[in-house]
Every structure is written in structure tokens, then in C-alpha cells.
């Protein structure tokens, strides 16, 4: 009998190849006769594009062709679409200016592609690109999120640079509750703009075969099928059945590789036009300029309470920066992934949120680890903390008092979601205990004796994962369904090949999914191979984002595995000469009840493929099943993060002395992988809270365009993490899982800022809380 592996920290199957340098990333792939692409990019944030003179560049060594935005327009390629329609409160559709594959008439952010140089080598392409001469007529740039609506207008069709003005919740009831409240806490905040910086930059090879008329695009994608759908149906590059997208090993995404970008699309188009394979790998500088950025909100919030501190209403007004164009899912991030989360873990009866999304002359902004939910959580968990300080009550107790209780589930929030299950107080209590919250006063006294400041901060977060019930998503404006596909192919010898429509780019699916399927069949994890990332191999799938892979993709596999077992029972019934209702499957064996007769999983697999003694009239041979799983609800991971800091008041340098994360992710397949996801997420949260800031100057030039100026968190910036779990099993998917990929980045930033402001004794310090900002806050507090 093979040991059941669910809940065990099985070492990651994929790590051998990664650690030994045997991974196969897009950059590792070279095709015979391939050429290389290099993009000519706009040096201006906003300019009219005049003549593009390629004559000199075309005559340079190795140049195959130079294609421009004007040719894109002549070929009538469609624009890059945004897949989620948002309606403004007046019912009008969001403004969606053309997002061209390459700019033909006007550029709208620094780094926007205007031409593609194709040459025999990368260096030749880059050399020639420097000799493409573009006439630009510079226009005034709109950069600031807060000031975007006061113009000048970037697009005639979007007056006031406004994409949409969205609302959610009951305005009148919320206004009335705030009007009559005993206490109202007010908070204005900026959620800082971030640059994702996956370790592997974006890369692609487009390979058009003139004989088969098939285009293969190798690319760094989190969702190859979605990329194929967009390239086919919207950009109209090639028919869907003639377009194969392969996303091989991918070195991190964090959201930034969900989207269909100009570069990969231009490469596909150019390969078909020229009949050659073209490879492009972004240089790091290009990643900074042209990967979709994250966050970038400014908000005003008001939280109303009664005399006892019971939350009565929350009113929020947010301006969200979309950048120059609507990226693939940009419109959904500050709306249905943000406004819907403003209830947090609390029974706030009235919530109303307005979101104005604006265009600016900056890189497009889209989903980045957490996508809307970190912004919502930061707002809620900061204003709750401020309320506790204003009321003079313990922040943990104010939270506890307002929490949704286990008996309240399913709980309908005032902002559209129905939470299925949770036990928030259990997570809070466990986190308080693990963080030794009770002992904080003593530690603070010790710090003060050493001339240091000490603070502690909490964050009780919730998120919505497992995107998503297709009908609900469709009703809210999604352009696609959000189910997932899975196929379980049992091989004749009883090993199993699993195909999933999700994509692993660091998450460890090859291990987690293998554990899931191996456990169902009672076979070894080593006997299960997980295949993903190739539209030529597996059924259509929706990919990996929104912490959906296990809860949706894993559920599809679970259903498919059940179908395999069902068929196996029928085969076993025939072989064991019993009734199918009397066949049990357990620990890898099909057993006939009340007998000592049984067949192993492997024997049944063999019988299915060598059907000599087989119920062939009733049952097809073979043992492979697939499932398309559409979730009935979102999943709701939740938990409590507690951060404790010590600050050097002379410099403002903040050290995180302890970070405690207690999360409820539902059923856990591999605790080691889950803990790793928490570590990575919290590291990114610490990055946002203390280190990272994307800065454009007034003319729209990116000031933080390299790691010299953009501060990514490094190991020595981080504390040891104290991680704990509590579990309430998701009620509506067969795995019971909720998702864990984003929680760390969602829960941690407010805990950190709550801790720092607690230490300094000020209301607010904006993110990132750099040493200088903290030092200045200390000076002001002491003045």
C-alpha cells in the first residue's frame, strides 16, 4: 500500500530540473533559422508619431525586416482587448481606446513599441533599432493618478481621462448611517504603484510554418489558452486551430504574465508576415518600462461606528490608475476584485464604494499578486486600526467585536459576495498567541530602554479566490468563463499523466496535483506526471491567477479522477464477476465486497488497454477521463497577520522583529508548498510596505527603471516568518481548498504599517515606509 500523501510536505518534483539547470524556459529554446526581434520604443510619455524612417536601419548588417505601427494599422490588426466590461453608474460602458499592437499615430507611455526590427542576431536587431528615426511631436503628459481627471485629455473618447465611474453598494443607506453615527474615522491613502519584476523577463518565439500554415508561439504566459483566444478572436492573428501556444517553464509571473502584450502579439504577426521564426527576450529595462504595473490607487474612506464601536457603515471613494491603455484584465481589478472585498471580516451593514478609473501616460496597470484585494485589505485594515486608536480600544478587540461569526455563514456581504465559511476569531486568537501579543508591552519597554521604538500591528484579511463562477463573472462583465479543465490519463501500466488548463510558474503544481491524483488512486506521487502550458496538448483552460489553480483546476482533476474510478469499478466488476455496486475502491485496490477478491489499480488499467477479457459491449476500452469544473462560488481564504517592528529613531530604520501569519486556506495538500507561498507573498507585502515604489517624473519618464533605484526585497530585508494554519474546509469544491498564492501579499502590508505607526505614534506613514519617511514622522511627532 502506498502512503497517502495529502497533507504531507512532499519535496517538489520540479525542483530537480530547476536546481540542476535543466529547466526549459523560452529563452532556452532556439529554433533552426530563427531570427531575433528588437523593439523601437517611445522615449516620450505622450507624443504624436510622425514619419518613421527605417531606410538607414534597413540597410544595416543582418536586418531581415522592419515593421512599424503603421503597417499594423494597414493590416487592420485588432487592438489588444480588455476582457472585462465595466459599466459606469450612469449605465454607460467603460471607455476603451484602441490599444494598438504597435503605435501608429500617437504614443501614450514611455516604452510603448512603435516598430519591430527583425535581424539575424539580437545585436544586429538592436544596432539597427538605434537607426530607426521617428519624428515625435511631444504632447503634455498626464502622470498623476490624483490629478488625471483635470486633464489634458489623452483620448477624445475619454473626457477627463476617465475610463469609468463605477459604484457598488447602497449609497443612501450608507450616507444616512454615517450621518447619524456616534463616531466616524476618516482616512485618505495612496496605495503605491509597483513593478512586478518576475525573475524571468517576458520572452517569446513566434514560428510560422508556411507548409502547415500553423503558427506556434512559445511565450512566458500564465494562461496560454486565453492568449490564443485573444490572438485569434480579437487581434485576428490566426485561426484558433492553426495557432498553438506553448508556455514552457516560466520563471515567475505574479500576474504580469496573464496579459496579452504588444510584443508577443507583434512577434506572432511578424512571423506570419515574414515566414520566419522570430525570438524576443525582454531586457530588464524593458520589463520595467513595459510589463503591466500593479496597484496605484488614491482613496478616501470613512468608517462609521456607534458608541460601542460596532461598525455601521463604510464609504469609500477611490481613483485607480489604468495607465495608458486597458490591459487584459485591468478594468476588473479596482472594481470586482476590490470593491467586493471592502466588508473584510466584519459585519459592517452598509458599504458604498465609488471607483473612478483613469488613463495616464504611464505603463498599463493590471493585476499584480492579490489584484484589488491588497488594496481593499489595506484600506479596511488601516482604517479599522485608526478607529481603534481614536476610540482608545485594543485594535484586536475592536476587530473581534465586529467579526462575522461562524454561525453567520453563509454570510451575504453588502458588496455582492456570499462568504461560505470561515472562523476568523480562531485565526486571530492563534496569531495573537503565536505573536505573544500579551507580552508586547514588556518588549516595548525593553526597546525603549535601549533607545528604540517598538510597535505591533494586526491585519485580519479576507480575499476572494478561486475565480470564478462563470455565470456570475459573466453577469459582472467578464468576457470569458472562469471554469477549469483537467484530464486524467491512466497509462496501460498504471502510471498517470495529468493534464491541466492551469499553469505553474513557481507554484509547484507538478507536485501538488500529483499528490491530489496519486492519493485518489492509491499510487505513488512519482507515478503521476503533470502536463501544462501547451494548447496543443490539453483542453482549453483558463490558466493560473487569482489563487485559482487548486480550488478550480484541482477540482476539475478531482472530478476527472472520480470518473476514472467509476469506470475502473465497472471493469473490476466484470473481472471479479460481481455487481458494480459491490465494488469498493480503496488504497489502490478494487475489491468485491464480502469476498477476498480484488484487482489493483494497475491491473484494471492494463485490462482497460488490453481488453481481452472486458465488458466491451457496454464499455469503451481505455482509461482516460476529463472534466470541466465550474465553481459555484468564490473561495474565501482569510487569516490574521501580526507584525512587530523595532525602529532606530536616529535613522528611521525599521526592523521587522517578528512576522506572524495565520491563514485558513481550507484543505492543504502540501504544507511545505503552502508555507512557501506564504513566505513569498509576505516578502512581496514587505516590499510594498517598506521598499518598493514605482516613480514617474512629471514628464512621464520612469525614474525607477532599474534595480539600482527600484528596491526589490532581498533575503536580508526579511525576518524569519512565523507561519500557522487554521482550517475550515471550503464548502463547495471537491478538494475543500481555498487558495494560498496571494494571501501573503494581501494580508501583510496593513499589518506592517499599523506596526510602524504604532511604534512612532502617528496616524499615518505612506507606503513604502522608507527610513527617511519614518525618520520625518518621528521628527514631526516629537515637534
Amino acid at each position, binding site marked *: 500500500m502506498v502512503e497517502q500523501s495529502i497533507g504531507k510536505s512532499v519535496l517538489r518534483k520540479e525542483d530537480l530540473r530547476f536546481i540542476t539547470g535543466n529547466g526549459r524556459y523560452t529563452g532556452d529554446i532556439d529554433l533552426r533559422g530563427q531570427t531575433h526581434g528588437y523593439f523601437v520604443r517611445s522615449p516620450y510619455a505622450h507624443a504624436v508619431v510622425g514619419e518613421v524612417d527605417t531606410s538607414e536601419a534597413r540597410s544595416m548588417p543582418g536586418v531581415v525586416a522592419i515593421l512599424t505601427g503603421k503597417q499594423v494599422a494597414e493590416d487592420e490588426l485588432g487592438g489588444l482587448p480588455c476582457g472585462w466590461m465595466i459599466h459606469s453608474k450612469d449605465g454607460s460602458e467603460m471607455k476603451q481606446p484602441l490599444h494598438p499592437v504597435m503605435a501608429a499615430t500617437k504614443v501614450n507611455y514611455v516604452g510603448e513599441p512603435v516598430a519591430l526590427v527583425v535581424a539575424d542576431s539580437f*545585436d544586429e536587431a538592436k544596432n539597427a533599432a538605434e537607426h530607426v528615426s521617428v519624428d515625435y511631436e511631444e504632447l503634455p503628459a498626464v502622470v498623476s493618478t490624483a490629478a488625471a481627471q483635470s486633464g489634458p485629455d489623452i483620448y477624445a473618447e475619454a473626457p477627463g481621462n476617465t475610463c469609468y465611474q463605477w459604484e457598488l453598494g447602497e449609497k443612501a443607506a450608507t450616507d444616512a448611517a454615517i450621518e447619524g453615527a456616534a463616531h466616524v474615522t476618516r482616512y485618505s491613502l495612496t496605495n503605491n504603484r509597483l513593478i512586478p519584476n518576475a525573475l524571468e523577463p517576458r520572452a517569446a518565439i513566434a514560428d510560422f510554418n508556411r507548409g502547415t500554415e500553423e503558427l506556434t508561439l512559445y511565450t512566458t504566459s500564465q494562461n496560454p489558452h486565453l492568449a490564443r483566444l485573444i490572438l485569434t478572436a480579437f487581434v485576428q492573428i490566426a485561426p484558433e486551430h492553426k495557432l498553438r501556444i506553448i508556455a514552457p517553464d516560466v520563471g515567475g509571473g505574479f500576474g504580469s504574465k496573464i496579459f496579452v502584450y504588444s510584443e508577443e502579439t507583434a512577434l506572432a504577426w511578424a512571423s506570419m508576415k515574414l515566414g520566419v521564426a522570430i525570438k524576443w527576450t525582454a531586457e530588464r529595462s524593458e520589463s520595467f518600462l513595459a510589463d503591466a504595473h500593479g496597484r496605484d490607487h488614491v482613496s478616501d474612506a470613512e468608517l462609521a461606528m456607534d458608541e460601542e464601536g460596532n461598525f455601521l457603515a463604510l464609504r469609500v471613494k477611490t481613483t485607480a490608475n489604468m495607465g495608458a491603455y486597458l490591459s487584459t484584465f485591468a478594468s476588473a481589478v479596482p472594481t470586482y476584485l476590490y470593491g467586493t472585498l471592502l466588508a473584510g471580516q466584519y459585519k459592517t451593514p452598509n458599504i458604498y464604494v465609488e471607483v473612478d478609473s483613469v488613463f495616464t501616460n504611464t505603463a498599463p496597470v493590471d493585476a499584480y499578486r492579490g489584484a484589488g484585494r491588497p488594496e481593499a485589505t489595506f484600506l479596511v485594515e488601516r482604517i479599522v486600526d485608526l478607529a481603534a486608536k481614536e476610540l482608545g480600544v485594543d485594535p484586536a478587540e475592536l476587530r473581534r467585536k465586529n467579526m462575522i461569526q461562524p454561525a453567520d455563514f453563509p454570510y451575504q456581504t453588502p458588496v455582492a459576495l456570499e462568504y461560505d465559511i470561515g472562523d476568523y476569531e480562531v485565526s486571530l486568537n492563534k496569531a495573537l498567541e503565536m505573536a505573544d501579543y500579551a507580552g508586547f508591552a514588556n518588549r516595548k519597554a525593553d526597546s525603549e530602554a535601549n533607545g528604540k521604538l517598538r510597535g505591533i500591528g494586526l491585519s485580519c484579511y479576507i480575499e476572494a479566490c478561486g475565480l470564478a463562477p462563470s455565470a456570475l463573472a459573466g453577469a459582472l462583465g467578464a468576457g470569458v468563463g472562469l471554469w477549469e479543465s483537467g484530464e486524467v490519463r491512466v497509462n496501460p501500466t498504471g502510471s498517470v499523466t495529468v493534464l491541466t488548463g492551469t499553469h505553474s510558474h513557481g507554484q509547484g503544481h507538478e507536485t501538488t496535483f500529483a499528490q491530489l491524483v496519486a492519493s485518489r488512486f492509491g499510487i505513488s506521487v512519482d507515478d503521476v506526471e503533470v502536463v501544462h502550458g501547451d494548447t496543443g496538448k490539453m483542453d482549453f483552460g483558463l490558466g493560473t491567477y487569482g489563487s485559482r489553480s487548486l480550488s478550480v483546476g484541482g477540482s476539475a482533476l478531482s472530478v476527472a479522477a472520480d470518473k476514472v474510478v467509476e469506470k475502473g469499478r465497472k471493469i473490476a466488476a466484470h473481472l471479479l464477476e460481481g455487481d458494480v455496486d459491490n465494488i469498493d475502491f480503496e488504497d489502490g485496490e478494487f475489491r468485491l465486497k464480502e469476498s477476498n477478491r480484488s484487482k489493483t489499480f494497475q491491473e484494471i488499467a492494463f485490462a482497460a488497454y488490453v481488453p481481452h477479457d472486458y465488458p466491451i459491449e457496454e464499455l469503451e476500452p481505455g482509461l482516460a477521463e476529463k472534466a470541466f469544473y465550474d465553481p459555484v462560488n468564490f473561495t474565501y481564504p482569510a487569516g490574521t497577520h501580526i507584525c512587530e517592528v523595532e525602529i532606530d529613531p536616529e535613522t528611521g530604520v525599521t526592523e521587522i522583529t517578528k512576522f506572524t501569519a495565520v491563514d485558513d486556506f481550507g484543505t492543504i495538500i502540501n504544507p511545505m508548498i503552502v508555507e512557501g507561498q506564504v513566505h513569498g507573498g509576505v516578502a512581496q507585502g514587505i516590499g510594498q510596505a517598506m521598499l518598493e515604489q514605482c516613480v514617474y517624473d512629471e514628464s512621464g519618464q520612469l525614474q525607477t527603471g532599474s*534595480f539600482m*533605484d527600484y528596491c526589490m526585497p532581498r533575503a536580508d530585508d526579511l525576518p524569519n516568518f512565523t507561519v500557522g494554519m487554521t482550517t475550515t474546509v471550503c464548502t463547495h469544491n471537491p478538494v475543500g481548498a481555498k487558495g494560498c498564492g496571494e494571501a501573503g501579499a494581501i494580508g501583510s502590508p496593513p499589518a506592517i504599517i499599523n506596526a510602524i505607526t504604532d511604534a512612532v505614534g502617528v496616524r499615518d506613514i505612506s507606503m513604502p515606509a522608507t527610513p*527617511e519617511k519614518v*525618520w*520625518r514622522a518621528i521628527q514631526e511627532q516629537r515637534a
Partner: protein
Amino acid sequence: MYDFNYHKPDSIDEAVQLFLGAEDGIYLAGGHTLLPSMKQRLAAPTDLIDLAGIDSLSGIEDVGADLEIGALTAHDEVATSSVVQSGIPALAELASLIGDAQVRNRGTIGGSVSNSDPAADYPAGVLGLGAEIVTNKRTIAADDFFTAMFETALEEGELLTKIKFPKPESAAYVKFPNPASRYATVGVFIALTGSGVRVAITGAAPSVFRSTDMEKALNSEFSVEALEGITLDAGEMNSDLHATAEYRAHLCTVMAKRAVLKLL
């Protein structure tokens, strides 16, 4: 990176001749500033003269009153050298704080000092210790060497061959790193020498400089308190995304106090 001619001479003379014969030549030591600049096409020399083949440029020697460190000596060699650790421990510590392990294994003292990056660590040690910069032509006092941002007294083609560090009575270096680049936002090197206290500050201003105010105060009384009330002129300081001039001026005093504290 643009194409360039690559040379690997095995003597100082040959290196200098290659430089003088090149249209736009440049010496390559550890390459930690030069090569990234070339990759970004911000630098485009016609000829790269790799000094790695010149054995006489490497090595650390204790010559009694001085430590002599060859131009091509890597930061890690300085950081881990028992000769430096016993002769001028503050210099070994400074080297250990440069960049990261990869940088310290390739970057060289001669490259760093010749480059005169306003945020580099070594210039603080060189100026703070009152070192002498030896070139293929002459010896230059540290006080005369660093002339401006990325500029030194080195003439066209002149090659820094070694640096002579007089051993101080004691010395200390305290650094406030830029969180992103790990260069010095402010680095203060304080040395007690036979001729008094020297205070050299890097990172804060366009070029490394000595604070005469701090030196005067510390020469009259070597204590943390002596630095109370000394605030450098923010008008002379760098200001960027990471630190305003005012904050840098403040950090100069804080880092200087901490350096003094290490020496008490």
C-alpha cells in the same frame, strides 16, 4: 553592447601604450561599473584593455608603516586578508560592506577608486586614511585625488597601480546603505592618525569629502558629544529618490557619531 577591440596586456607599459594608441580606450579592472554601462550602451569604448594579465597589479603587502594594496585586488581579498584585518581592520570592514558577494569577488579597489563614484565606499577609506595613490607616473595624495563626481586627478591614460594606506592608530567606517543599490547613501570613515583625526564622507555629496568641522571638533575632544550640534550644510548634499539632502546631512552626523562610538 557595441563591438570593441579587446586587449589583454601583460605589463603596465604595454597597457599604457595600448591605451594611448586607441581611439577611445578604457582600462578594464573588475568591470562592475564599466561592463553594465557598456551593456546598456551608455559607454562605448573602441578598445577595452583588460588588466587581468598584469600580475604586478594584484596583492596586499605590509611594508611597515603602510599597507600597499595593488589596484587589481578584489574587495573580498581586502575584506578577508589577515594583513588588512590586523593592519587596518576598518578598511577590511569597509571592503566587506561593498555590494554583495558576487561584486566583492570581482570588483577591485583600483577600479572603484579610479571611477570615483560619489556613492562608492572605498573613496571614504582612501581619503579618511590619507592614502597615497600610486600610478604608472607618480604618487598622488588622496586629498588631491578625488576632484568631482566621477572625476579624479588621473590624467588621460594614467593607470592607478596601487594604493599606499598609512596605518592609523585606529579607524572606523559606518555606512548607511541605499536599500536598493546597497551603495552608500552616507558612509563615514574616521581615522585617528599621528597628525590628528580625519573624517571622510562618501555618498552624501557629489564627491567624497572631508568634514573639517567634524575633524576640528574631534581633534579638540574625541567624543560623541563633540559632534552634537554639528550639522553639515544640506545645500552641499545630494538629493534623490532615496534620500533628500536634509536627511543625508542628518545621517552624516549620525553615522559619524556611530563611528566615534566604535573607536571609544
